[in-house]
């Protein structure tokens, strides 16, 4: 049994059939080859699988592919090349806020969603808003410095 879906993924239309139980994470990585979204905890705690669905961050490990029907999905592959990404990448590089890189896509997509919601540069507020994105390498300080700068900029 499959479900017919029609969605926009990184600006391009997708129409096709998905098994009802297929996770969005697996659909993106295995079906579409968009491997920039990563798998880690599988219980929507760590945030490495974060993608934007209609601009909202979701943990794609706990989201059904079937549920993107009629919606817009943005992954790191779609974000890369945008002005936001260009600016964010420069800031992350300057603060050396990338180590292994496994959490990075999720961090950037969540940051974009926060920017879209008007979150500005209060450091504590940003730390709280980013509580769904874990990192084991950096100790967070450099990422928080980066996000404070990125979200503090006039949009």
């Amino acid at each position, binding site marked *: 049994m499959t479900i017919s879906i029609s969605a926009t993924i990184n600006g391009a239309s997708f129409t096709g059939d998905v098994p009802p139980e297929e996770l969005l994470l697996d659909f993106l990585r295995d079906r579409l080859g968009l491997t*920039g979204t990563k798998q880690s905890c599988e219980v929507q705690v760590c945030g490495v699988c974060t993608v934007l669905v209609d601009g909202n961050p979701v943990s794609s490990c706990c989201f059904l592919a079937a549920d993107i029907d009629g919606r817009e999905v943005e992954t790191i592959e779609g974000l890369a090349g945008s002005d936001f990404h260009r600016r964010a990448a420069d800031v992350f590089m300057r603060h050396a806020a*990338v180590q292994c890189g496994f959490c990075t*896509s999720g961090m950037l997509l969540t940051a974009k969603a926060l920017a879209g919601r008007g979150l500005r540069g209060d450091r504590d507020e940003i*730390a709280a808003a980013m509580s769904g994105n874990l990192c*084991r390498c950096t100790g967070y300080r450099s990422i928080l410095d980066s996000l404070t700068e990125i979200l503090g900029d006039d949009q």
Partner: protein
Amino acid sequence: MERADGRLKLAGQAEFTGDIRLPGMLYGAVLHSPVAHARISSIDTSAAGKLDGVAAILTAEDLSDLDPYYGHALRDRPIVAIGKVRFTGEPVAVVAAESQAAADFAVTRITVEYDELPIAASLDQALAKEAPLVHEEVSRPGSAHGLGALPDAEGNVCYSYSFRRGDVDRAFAEAAVVVEGEYAFPAVYQYSMETHTTIAHWHGGELTLWSSCQHPFLVRQEIAALFGLPLDLVQVIVPFLGGGFGSKSYTKMEPLTAAIARKAGRPVRILNGVHESMITTRRHNMSCRMRTAAAADGTVLGRTAEAWLDTGAYADNGPRVTATAGDAAPGPYRWQAVQVQAHCVYTNTGPAGSYRAFGATHLQWIGESQLDEVARRLGVDRLEIRRRNLLRPGEEVRPGGKPLDADLIGDVEKAAGAIGWGEPQARSAEKNKRRGRGVSVGLLAAGAHPVSMATVRMGPDGSVTVLVGTTELGQGARTVMAQIAAGVLGSPVSKVVVRGTDTRYTPYDRSTGASRSTTVAGLAVQRAAQNVLDALLETAAARLEAPPQLLTPADGAIHDQGGRSMTHAELVRARFGFDGGELIGHGRVQPEGGSGSYAEGPVFWEVCVAGAEVEVDTETGVVTVLRTSTVADVGRAINPQLVARQDEGATLQGIGNALFEEMHFAPDGMLLNDTLLSYRIPAFRDIPAAMQCSIVENGDGPGPFGAKGCGEGALAAIPAAVVNALADAGVPMNTLPLTPERVWRRIQELGTS
């Protein structure tokens, strides 16, 4: 200095093992034992084998043509359970199928009958008289433990390490103060964001593995031995790793993946879930008894320690961890007498192995808390007692080993100053909150076995490729190695590319761990680059008619003193007489004298120095880390940002270890908290309000430009500093983690209001 792989990772384009798809690749799923200790009476795979999409199923009977045991310290681990399971979660069978879903489903259709055996799932149970034996036969030694002759096993104790110096009885008899205690350290999980992932592909009698492994050359060695292949027919390719921290050290999922791929006749990928990685490896939990004796003037006299480390059902790196723990028990102090025994114990739980700063993280908080208690009882300042007793550069740390090569007193003074040592303690506004400060000093023997090679290649356009076996876990190896080569050659760093490790092409490097990469592998890169530079200078000397010693490499060219220069590209072409050819430089690092063994080393001593200020809520037991300081004593910081990131990351891991990380094994051996829903790792909210990472550069390292490594020390020192700070706030603790419940109960015991 831009990180070489940063933009690739920011764009989501960096390739990790799980991102690779091979044509015809199958997906593997593992059947895990539901019981901790049992004989396997039967396995029936017939129903599973008939399912759609199932290509192959592997059990022990498929290994009968092999000697199917591996293990670099003790060769005690079967590729898949053979006749017996020893921990809940042990692989009993593997399915390879056309999709992950098909493989996962097929696993549930395999029927296994278990004949349960008595369980020894804790140190107490494993050490009890008449304890059930996890391994009935003594294990063969592995090939790469570096521990010398292994002592005889005794019951469930698979390895013991002890040493004794001076007259312990006299030291304690003469002491003005004796502190004693019993301590417990938890099992914690390294939690790299990427779980263990391996792809195996047999082709034309050769085996290629892509794996998230830190030590591809050691893995290659074990795989070759297991499958009876010459080394050069086993190829291990390591893409980017999503963190390692020791969880991916030595051999993990590679034998199982290679075995199922062999049976399937097609490439197979096994990608662990977190719950699977958590029973693939973890940190040793430990019990320890320690005594410290000191004179009235604050001079330390004697220390005794006995520690038992729970290595789980298989040894993995347990013996090395145990020896390092033993060595960490005295701390870097001038003792008259020490006596240490450390034991590595099998239990029916998931195997424990390497995790950043092992041994030091286990013991430093214990010894340092006793030293603080000595100071308190004698009325001596806790920083001052360290000044009096810490070893100084050049002093012996252990007999026959490398003398101390770091200014520990200077380092701890820095760490203390950064948290306001000596300033009046700011009081919390709230009556029920208490604050305290603590510092801690320790050492880690760094470098492991110092054998590394490197190749540097310069093409006719002057571009440079570096081949070195250090794996990129996130620490920035590909950046630092490029900086080293560029520094020697005078090339712009942007023209130097460091390629990922492929054992077919990358020269031998023993391992990525023990803080050794910049110092040992980096030295090999430096020597290889020097090789290439010598060739450039030779050609330039002839063309510019100047002696090589008066030529300088800079800006991608060789310059004479008169303002003339030739670019690298021009020099390569000149050397070969056309627009082609290549300069290839080789660098080699090996022990200068002796065997390079653990006992003769280390390559350098890594300092484990930190300070912490904490606040404890006496009504709830909640501990908050207000500020931390760490010191990276690195000789020369080739990339200061990357050094700081190591200490920041280690600080957060240390906070997790100190305050809330703990794996809970039930009495029946099952791991109860095997997902992030129930195992908490630090998040953004756990950053201390102030985190200061100092870098000390005294040029006293054996690595390139006087460098020493870093990355581990802070993880050992932060929990120790936190424990000491909490004791300073009035709540001394003997058990980690410092959960609110434990701290609150202790407060009740002490009657602190």
